[in-house]
């Protein structure tokens, strides 16, 4: 059994400013676990990795106390060309063949359009292209690689697929000021998790990832052709906090990504698989952290329904299990606050001293919690009991608003959670996640039961009756339902081309990229 992450010396507090109403979720899960769509999680992670690569510090070891900073691209001109350029096609149509006139008209239009955000000079473009039409073709081509184009209406939040370093930039407001609503930091937390993994894993990652973020590739050159010769970078920014020096999820994430990177996906296709594994592992990090605070040094059980057409015990328990796992974060908040107060001997002695007045006790408790939790607003409690209750309630509200929502968003992004066919969200892995798990865990052809054991041991994923009976109360393990779930698992993998079924309930799982 692994050691508790809450042990002395494994947690370091954050000392660089606390942007929070009550620093409880951040102290437990880091700054910060917040809702984030999948494409933004991937974009943020790759941006940070590329920033650190440029600094020559890719996957260097980090510490919880350290403010890890990197400079991201602004790519102002590129983004205006791609997303604030409504007259491009219109001009191209109007001046068909007359390149000079087209350039003249378009440059006038774009200056006008870009004025609102920032004045920019686009005259550098003309010398880069033989004709205006050539320029239009490239802009249209690059526009096609926008991730989740329907996800946001804000042009300054549109992100390109991380196909090259020049395609990486951070979302901003309309005037190119930093905007954290999309890059809410879970992607950076994932990077920090990897930077705390075992040294050999970090070294391996630092060897493997650069092939996917290095410049001077075909796609990099294409995007650069739309940008001025000198690239502008934002000032170095940090502020992301991961509280634990070591955590079981760090090495797990590192192993998964290494295994995927080793498969040799062409070009940057690896990110398409990687994104599910990052979301899934950050989700597990959140659950496992809650578990450790609650006294269980093991990942939470993930009872997975392999998509069924009707309701059964597996479906029922996959929903219950998800809710229980995610709501355990509220218990973690209680325990954290108890431990925090207990850690101050002077305060606990005072609180236990029957001779001391309530006023003095309240005053010291207020002072202590205010300093530790950076409370933006002090709850008005008149007694120690009332005050503690109010602080707890405030901390839990923050946990609900950030951590629980973030967990739900990560679970959905990973393809682990769905409410397909029902009105309740449950664990029912998507084909994309199943595929990603097979690719990350199957090297040589292996028997299906071996894969299921790996999924159980590594992620605590429960599909079969055998695993259910080891982790769940006996009264919920309806063996026949889990047996059918197991059969659906084999069928699903076979349908996805990831398994070959033989006789006698024997199936071999294979990684098609090996």
């Amino acid at each position, binding site marked *: 059994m692994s050691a508790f992450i809450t042990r002395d010396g494994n947690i370091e507090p954050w000392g660089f400013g606390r942007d929070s109403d009550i620093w409880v979720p951040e102290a437990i899960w880091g700054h910060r676990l917040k809702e984030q769509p999948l494409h933004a999680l991937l974009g943020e992670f790759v941006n940070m990795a590329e920033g650190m690569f440029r600094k020559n510090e890719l996957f260097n070891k980090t510490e919880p106390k350290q403010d890890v900073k990197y400079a991201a691209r602004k790519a102002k001109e590129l983004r205006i060309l791609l997303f604030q350029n409504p007259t491009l096609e219109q001009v191209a149509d109007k001046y068909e063949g007359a390149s000079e006139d087209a350039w003249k008209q378009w440059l006038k239009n774009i200056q006008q359009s870009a004025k609102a955000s920032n004045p920019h000079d686009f005259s550098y473009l003309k010398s880069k292209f033989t004709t205006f039409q050539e320029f239009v073709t490239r802009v249209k081509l690059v526009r096609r690689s926008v991730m989740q184009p329907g996800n946001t209406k804000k042009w300054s939040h549109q992100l390109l697929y991380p196909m090259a370093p020049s395609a990486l930039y951070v979302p901003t407001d309309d005037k190119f000021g930093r905007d954290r609503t999309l890059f809410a930091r879970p992607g950076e937390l994932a990077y920090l998790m990897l930077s705390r993994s075992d040294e050999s894993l970090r070294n391996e990652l630092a060897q493997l990832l650069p092939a996917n973020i290095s410049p001077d590739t*075909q796609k990099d050159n294409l995007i650069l052709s739309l940008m001025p010769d000198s690239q502008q970078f934002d000032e170095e920014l940090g502020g992301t906090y991961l509280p634990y020096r070591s955590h079981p999820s760090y090495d797990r994430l590192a192993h998964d990504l290494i295994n995927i990177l080793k498969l040799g996906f*062409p070009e940057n296709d690896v990110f398409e698989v990687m994104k599910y594994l990052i979301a899934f592992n950050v989700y597990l990090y959140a659950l496992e952290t809650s578990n450790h605070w609650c006294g269980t040094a093991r990942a939470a059980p993930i009872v997975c329904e392999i998509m069924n057409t009707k309701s059964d015990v597996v479906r029922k328990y996959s929903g219950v299990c998800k809710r229980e796992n995610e709501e355990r974060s509220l218990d973690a908040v209680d325990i954290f606050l108890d431990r925090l107060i207990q850690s101050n001997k002077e305060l606990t002695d005072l609180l236990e001293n029957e001779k001391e007045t309530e006023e003095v006790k309240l005053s010291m408790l207020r002072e202590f919690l205010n300093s530790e939790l950076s409370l933006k607003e002090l709850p008005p409690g008149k007694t120690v009991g009332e005050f503690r209750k109010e602080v707890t309630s405030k901390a839990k509200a923050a946990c609900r608003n950030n951590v629980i929502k973030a967990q739900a968003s990560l679970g959905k992004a990973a393809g682990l959670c769905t409410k397909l066919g029902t009105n309740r969200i449950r664990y029912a892995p998507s084909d994309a996640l199943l595929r990603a798990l097979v690719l990350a865990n199957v090297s040589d052809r292996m028997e299906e039961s071996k894969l299921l054991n790996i999924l159980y041991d590594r992620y605590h994923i429960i599909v079969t009756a055998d695993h259910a009976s080891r982790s769940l109360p006996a009264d919920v393990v309806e063996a026949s339902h889990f047996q059918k779930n197991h059969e659906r698992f084999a069928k699903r993998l076979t349908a996805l081309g990831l398994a070959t079924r033989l006789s006698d309930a024997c199936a071999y799982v294979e990684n098609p990229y090996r």
Partner: protein
Amino acid sequence: MPSHTNGEKWIKFLRAYGPLPEGNSQEAENIASFSAKLGIERLSFTHPMEETIKKLFANKESKKVAIVLGTAGDGKTTVCLNLVETMSGQPADPACTSQSIETFQILPEYGGGEMTVIYDVTAWRHKSDDSTLMQDQVHLLEKAAQYAAGKGGTPFMIAVNDGQLHETVRALPADCSSDLRAFFDELLQMHSSNRPNSTSHPNLEVVNLSSVPSHKLMEMCLGGILSRPEWACIEDEKDTALFGPNSSIVANYHLLKTEAVRDRLISLARVADASGYHLPTRSIIMLLVNVLLGHPDFPNQLVKPGVEAERRFNKDGRYKAALHKNLFGMNFKPAERKKRVLFEFLGNLRVGEETTNDIDQLIIFGKEHPDFQQAHDDLLGKDPFDQRNPELPEYLSKYLKGEVSEDTEIEKFRELLSDERKRIFVHASPEQFELYNLWVTCIFHHAGHFISKILAPVENRDEIKEEDQLKLIAGLNRVWTGLLVRDDLECIHISTGLDTTTSPISDLLIKKIDSYSDSHIQVRARNIDSKPEFVLRCGNEEFAFELTMLRFEFLMRVAKGAMPMSFSSEIYSNFQALKQKAIHTLRLKPNPKFMLLMDLDHVGSIQETRISLR
């Protein structure tokens, strides 16, 4: 107790091979006693692999440890029993077979000495509640491992199912010898990679009975059942209800002997293999017995001799147990049918359930319409064994008058049409089948093409025809580029999207592969099992993927204009993964100095625009 006629005994005997609830009734161990009781020789077939196995032992030197693998029902026990009889000169000892293990003296002409056969590993090792193997069993396996490694001892033959093999490995005690571990490690490697010979154990050999193509087993079983002399009862007992004019058995027996039905069964077995479903001998026999004896009104849905048969066959109801219905397990209720893997597979083919204008208009309008009359009479006119549902003409007439409007009636009409399509599918002669393109009534519209134009030449180690290769190229081009490129291009365009290589529209060309210069396109037989594979070669690198029935169907439909994503998301993703693997394996890299952007002209020809990136 009334005495049974020969015919009744024969049917009673055949029933034991059918899809009865007591699923193990067909196992070799059980059938022998039933055979003795009725005085009828059991159904016996010479498995095509028997000769291979015999060669491993019937010599004076270099005997092996042969691991006989196979799907449950492939005949492993029978093969073992036959070998024991050959090698020892006498039938296997029933006292030993009941224990699933026999050690015997080999005849001097085969070199003499001792040999051990384990007939069925599961039955052999189920002797204690302990999940690990017992000490004496481990000891025996140690001896087999020792002999396999060339370290002396006596030969073994061990029959085991795929799953049982893994179970046995899991049941090895932690303290077993490293030799035994090494033996099983090698065995699992050989199993997972379909390798018959060992690289580390000179005397170890794996014989996989499931490697024999299903269509060969189907031919073997058809011959074995239909040639039995007991069928003389049809003529000898034609005055009885069981074999009289209303008997479904008689109708189905005569139909099963026709070239058309045999051809169809063999084709279905080929489709099964090409779809990754091996049909074991036991399942094929079960299917054939169901075809002959299936009847929805009898207990266990199989005709049973006796009063029941006399009552049921006193009037004509042959359509109820028509061959085309029994073949797809329609004599069972859907839930029962689903329990049998073979019927589940055949059901998934949806034979008769795919609507098709050409066939449906023949069925509905053909009899009256002058344009279709000739074809109708040719294809649908004959029904010598009254297999067609008598309700169909009535419903057709109602439909033409617009009187089929209630939901239940519409449902019934659809059912009758589906039934009739099935009947045509099964009864059409090979010529009619091709002429009317009857594969369109199932999900694999191009199965006929696959069998004749791909499987046949590949099995004969011939090249497929250029026109067929062009169709495959057209399908691949359309799936991999996402563009509706013309269907007569001779080269495959490997292209990517700007974001990922699997972008639905992948119009950035990396490489054109044709059959000339340093590249190559070919369909050939796979080394390990002779199944067809599609090969792309570029310089010194080669990428190949198995051309399964499903992949072929998908490519053909896309080549004919279907949208790649309209078929199934799984097969589409499968082809996208193949593209990724092809780019990786063929080491194709985009040029950082320029891009080739593909576009189509009005006839689907690819126009390339060069984008300089200097």
